[in-house]
């Protein structure tokens, strides 16, 4: 049990510390693919340190909610990173929150950020909050459908059990996961404010979603948000890997496999980051009202995945 707690803490710390690196890697890959000279891979860390050193500027009339929300956001994302098996499958915290609760954690963080964005009452903040919730209300059920498919396959909503079932049981091909995988990719793009839905590097206010929400933040608050965003990308990637490519995650009690598991995680994340950058390079951002169509499709694919499971795999 104590070892389990240690592994739990170590894995969460690993995620928290590595998350900006993944962000840097994706930015670098994208720059390469677009023929630009890439920023250093450690640039996100430098940005974070710079922001932490700066004074925080808070608008007049802001309520405590505004200053409180970045911490909640960061806390939720760290918690989510603790639930998803990345390296080891031996997570004592995992029974406290299953995969539905994981979706709930993302929702909690999002609601706090949206409320904080509305706190000062600027035009862009409220606009960003509205758009974020628009994306979320379709992405969240789609994500639920994806994890439901996985839990149908594994007969459990515990992520550790799902990984156990998919990675360590006899190898089997699940057609339903093909549908779920496509849906998950669509949701992950939307939830992490990536390109067909939102542009993470945009400077055009009217097209922003996530960036519009955090316009009023600066200094340490902004640093926490940026870090949490990186952590969210990391957690989503890890979740995708755990659901669709779980091979390599160490079994419960198998400590010898841990170094290999870390290596496997890094390789998979690097490949995933490269894939993300490639997709972003090839796609253009869509009009806002194409987004419901995109996510509606993801949602229906998720439902379809469950139906296919019932037909082919029961």
């Amino acid at each position, binding site marked *: 049990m104590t070892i389990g707690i240690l592994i739990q803490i170590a894995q969460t710390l690993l995620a928290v510390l590595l998350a900006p690196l993944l962000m840097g890697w994706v930015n670098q890959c994208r720059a390469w693919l677009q023929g630009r000279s890439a920023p250093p891979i450690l640039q996100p860390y430098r940005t974070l340190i710079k922001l932490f050193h700066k004074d925080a500027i808070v608008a007049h009339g802001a309520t405590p909610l505004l200053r409180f929300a970045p911490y909640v956001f960061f806390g939720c994302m760290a918690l989510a990173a603790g639930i998803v098996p990345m390296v080891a499958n031996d997570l004592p915290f995992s029974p406290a929150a299953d995969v539905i609760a994981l979706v709930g954690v993302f929702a909690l963080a999002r609601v706090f950020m949206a409320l904080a964005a509305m706190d000062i009452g600027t035009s862009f903040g409220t606009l960003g909050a509205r758009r974020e919730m628009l994306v979320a209300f379709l992405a969240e059920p789609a994500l639920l459908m994806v994890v439901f498919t996985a839990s149908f396959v594994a007969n459990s909503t515990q992520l550790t059990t799902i990984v156990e079932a998919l990675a360590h049981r006899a190898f*089997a091909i699940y*057609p339903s996961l*093909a549908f779920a995988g*496509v849906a998950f990719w669509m949701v992950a793009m939307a939830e992490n404010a990536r390109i067909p839905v939102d542009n993470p590097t945009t400077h055009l206010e009217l097209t922003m979603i996530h960036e519009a929400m955090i316009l009023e933040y600066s200094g340490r608050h902004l640093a926490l948000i940026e870090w949490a965003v990186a952590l969210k990308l990391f957690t989503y990637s890890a979740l995708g890997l755990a659901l669709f490519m779980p091979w390599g995650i160490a079994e419960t009690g198998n400590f010898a496999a841990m170094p290999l598991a870390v290596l496997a995680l890094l390789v998979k994340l690097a490949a995933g980051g490269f894939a993300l950058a490639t997709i972003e390079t090839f796609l253009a951002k869509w009009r806002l009202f194409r987004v419901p169509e995109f996510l*509606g*499709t993801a949602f*229906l*694919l998720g439902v379809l995945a469950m*139906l296919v499971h019932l*037909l082919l795999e029961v």
Partner: protein
Amino acid sequence: MSQSLYLQVVNLLSALLLLIAFAMLSQRRVVGLITLFAWQGLALALSTTIVAYSTGQHHLYYSAALTVGLKVIAMPWFFFRLIRQLDAHREVETLFNVPTTMLVGIVLVVFAFNLAQPISQMSGTVTRSILGIAMASVLLSFLMMITRTKAIPQVIGFLAMENGLFLAATSATYGMPLVVELGVALDVLVGVLILGIFFFHIRETFDSLDLKHMESLKER
């Protein structure tokens, strides 16, 4: 490889076929539609090959080869040439509310799966659970034909429907007799060629491939 693994791969391929059917339903561009159609043919051919290999039904090899030859290579190539000649490769269709169409698609899938359940229980093949997917793809292709107004997408919908029927035949009875399959393939080929000629005539008459102009042919 064990028998069950073959079955799983066939299941996966047929699920991909259904996935592509849904993608076709929401694809706006003609070029994308043709590419998807080619991929669907490839998935069908692969699954037919695997069924042929795992069950030793040799005539299925021929039908797989036929599928590759006709639906993956010949027809897409023909269509690509056609749209280049018709200058329709930039054509984008305004679709009626994609999520609604998809929702109808889901309803059709539920319907098809339920319809197929009793039939597949009668069938003795190992691939019988695919029957539901095959029926669903047939219905989805039909739905695609209904929602389209342009000529080429309608023909592609028709061909995709034929893909679904092929899959149904393979899964329920390990394929139709070879003579029938050859006949169907020939029919389809001739049909597409004739339709290709029709496209030119339609465009000459109406200056467009939009089928809603056909309404003006109605006698009063």
